[in-house]
């Protein structure tokens, strides 16, 4: 029996060795870049996408009017130049003369007109259609009140595209980076319909085109021969990872050249063992606590302020999370370009002062040891959510506050938030490089993404005034005034900014960390000397 096992073991070992050698041989001969992606994409239709992991794929497959460099800066994409009218409401884009679809057809301005109309047509059912609501008539078209032809996007000639906006929007170039503004191949969609996202019909205008899509396994792309700047790496396989742990394992066993994240608990190990491969970069985002301002006792600013005072952002990021996140005392991330965020009013107070002040505020609001404040804190059922909320509950306990933790799945959590069925909840926003994107979450007319139903007319007025400003600087000044008014009310307590925590093979060149945490494969190439 034993000898039999020995034999089996040796046999398996030989098979294993043989296959490993075979795999090495295959790897050497085929120039395939294996990348890890956060999961399985829902769709490769840029107008129906909804997730960041899809954005990664779509950025390789398509080219919008604008694009971004390896470092994350806005750069010309399918358009080589653009101009803006005096009032900031009309933009004119000049398309590249050598823009081509992957079947060789030229990319024209009318392709963009078709695509933007398609995005906003109700029957497309694009869940992110509102990304382009600043375009004239866009919202009405999406509601079905106007025909798609009424959209303020026109082709002046085959290479000139004009976009008219409903109101000045200085961040348009950035908004056009999102796949919602990508062109789709009209000539294919009109021929094959919904099946255009299948590999056999695939046509796109980016650096790569779809070669194979094996659900739950990978999306394989090959270089688009007609793209104006051919990509150095000809084949890229984006593997759909089941979990952070499995991606981490597959990176370490050499099967993947880069992974989007790894378990936070391994960060210290990676900083010591693989400093060259670790890519830890701040991410444009804000994680915060939101109070339901409609629900007593959280309609009382004193209660909100007391709870906000004792939260130690620094402790949360450095002791509890330890995943590279940066503490934030403002709802607008400090990473935003050309803007000075307004921190919470208590930012300068010492810890002891804060606790004393918080006790006083709670006492004024009628809470003490005999009549303790009871809070239900909602969080997402994830390791990170769990950690933060346990820590916050412990911080509130020093005020005598009794916290009940309620956790639910991501979907259920945000559904509850939108419906306002919560007391205090953890929320987050990964967004654009402008303050308005974050402050708008607190506008009373923004709808149910203002989860806590915060309403302050002085704040709303400043926000509305900012929207009318075409000039980015004066717009920023108004936004700052609005933020100043808002922070005094404590409708939210900012907690921290996320960090992207990637591992990238040291021989893979061209990879630059950026605040968008987005990386296009066309910038990557292998170096011979690692």
């Amino acid at each position, binding site marked *: 029996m034993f000898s039999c096992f020995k034999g089996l073991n040796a046999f398996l070992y030989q098979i294993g060795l043989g296959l490993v050698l075979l795999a090495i041989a295959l790897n050497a001969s085929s120039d395939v870049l294996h990348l890890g992606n956060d999961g399985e994409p829902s769709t490769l239709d840029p107008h129906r996408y909804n997730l960041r992991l899809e954005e990664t794929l779509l950025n390789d497959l398509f080219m919008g009017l604008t694009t971004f460099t390896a470092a994350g800066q806005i750069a010309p994409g399918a358009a080589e130049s653009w101009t803006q009218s005096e009032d900031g409401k009309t933009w004119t884009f000049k398309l590249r003369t050598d823009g081509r679809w992957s079947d060789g057809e030229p990319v024209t301005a009318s392709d963009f007109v078709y695509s933007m109309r398609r995005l906003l047509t109700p029957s497309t059912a694009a869940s992110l259609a509102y990304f382009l609501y600043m375009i004239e008539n866009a919202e009405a078209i999406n509601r079905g009140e106007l025909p798609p032809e009424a959209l303020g996007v026109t082709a002046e000639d085959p290479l000139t595209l004009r976009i008219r906006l409903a109101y000045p929007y200085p961040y348009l170039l950035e908004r056009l980076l999102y796949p919602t503004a990508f062109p789709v191949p009209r000539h294919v969609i009109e021929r094959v319909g919904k099946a255009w996202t299948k590999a056999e019909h695939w046509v796109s205008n980016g650096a790569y085109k779809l070669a194979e899509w094996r659900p739950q396994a990978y999306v394989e792309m090959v270089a688009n021969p007609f793209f104006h700047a051919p990509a150095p790496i000809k084949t890229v396989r984006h593997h759909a990872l089941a979990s952070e*742990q499995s991606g981490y394992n597959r990176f370490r066993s050499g099967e993947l050249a880069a992974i989007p994240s790894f*378990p936070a*608990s*391994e960060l*210290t*190990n990676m900083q010591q063992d693989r400093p060259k491969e670790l890519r830890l970069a701040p991410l444009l985002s804000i994680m915060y606590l939101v109070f339901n301002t409609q629900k007593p006792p959280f309609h009382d600013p004193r209660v909100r302020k007391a709870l906000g005072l004792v939260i130690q952002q620094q*402790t949360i990021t450095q*002791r*509890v999370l*330890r995943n590279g996140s940066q503490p934030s005392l403002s709802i607008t991330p400090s990473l935003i370009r050309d803007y000075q965020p307004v921190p919470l009013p208590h930012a300068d107070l010492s810890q002891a002062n804060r606790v004393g002040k918080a006790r006083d505020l709670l006492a004024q609001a009628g809470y003490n040891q005999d009549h303790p404040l009871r809070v239900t804190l909602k969080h997402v*059922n994830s*390791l990170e959510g*769990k*950690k933060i909320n*346990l*820590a916050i*509950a*412990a911080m509130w306990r020093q005020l005598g506050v009794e916290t009940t*933790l309620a*956790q*639910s*799945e991501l979907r259920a959590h945000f559904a509850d938030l939108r419906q306002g069925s919560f007391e205090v909840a953890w929320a987050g926003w990964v967004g654009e490089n402008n303050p308005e994107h974050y402050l708008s979450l607190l506008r009373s007319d923004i709808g149910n993404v203002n989860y806590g139903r915060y309403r302050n007319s002085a704040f709303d007025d400043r926000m509305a005034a900012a929207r009318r400003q075409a000039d980015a600087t004066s717009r920023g000044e108004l936004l700052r005034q609005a933020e100043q008014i808002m922070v005094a009310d404590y409708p939210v307590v900012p907690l921290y900014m996320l960090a992207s925590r990637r591992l990238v093979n040291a021989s893979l060149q061209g990879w630059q960390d950026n605040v968008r945490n987005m990386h296009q494969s066309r910038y990557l190439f292998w170096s011979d000397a690692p």
Partner: protein
Amino acid sequence: MAFQRNRATQPRLQALGLPMTLLCVILGAALLAPWASDWGLQDIDWEAIQAPPSSSHWFGTDMVGRDLFTRTMAGARTSILVALIATSISLLIGILWGATAGYAGGRIDLLMMRVVDLLYGLPFILIVILLVVLFGRQPYLLFASLGAIFWLDTARIVRGQALRLRQADFVQAARCQGYRHTYIIVHHLLPNMRGPLLVCTTLTLPAIMLAESFISFLGLGIAEPNTSWGTLIADGTQSMEAAPWMLFFPGTLLIGCIWCCNTVGDRLQNQVSEGSHSLGKSHLRTPTR
């Protein structure tokens, strides 16, 4: 009461030895832990977040700095409680179904056992997952749905026993005396299948513990701040390289507990089947993994 107890079907507890002792130790520790530890279930030690075992934290701490000994023992209480409640539910349904089928015999028996065979073929754990996902992670839902899966084996065993016993003299005698069927089942049949039932229980307990850990691994188990072995193990596997103690302690205890239950079950079964061969060996639990 005109029946004799079959001595061989009465288990001899003293022969169970080591595994039984271990089980008692685990159970005792779980129950006494709240007095043995200085830390509460939710207390955070800010100075020792994800710290290895030490004199102040015997099992180390978890990812937010909570004492792992306290939590592992609390997890033990939950896991054992879930297993006990779910087992009771499965026994209740199984006994009712099996005894009725076996005692009634004939066509009713055939039909009832056909239903059992049919249900055997269904992916019940999927239904449990669905229930927990769709209707939230309430503990009672977990108890009830796990109990509702595992009654099938019990029903088969009880039915076999009942078939045998209904021919026995004392049952026939009771029938002649005009006792009601329910009375006969409760007072004559059940006491005489105590041995097989005990075996069945000791084998259902670990199966349910395994099922609970499986569901917890998928992130669908007991919710914070309460915990169970499955939940602790799920957390442990997520940081098993940086903090192996988070997996080691709850993992060892779960495996140990299941091993003990299985061994006790086996030994009981050997004792029981020395006396009656009808029990057979069919009731090896389906591992749910």
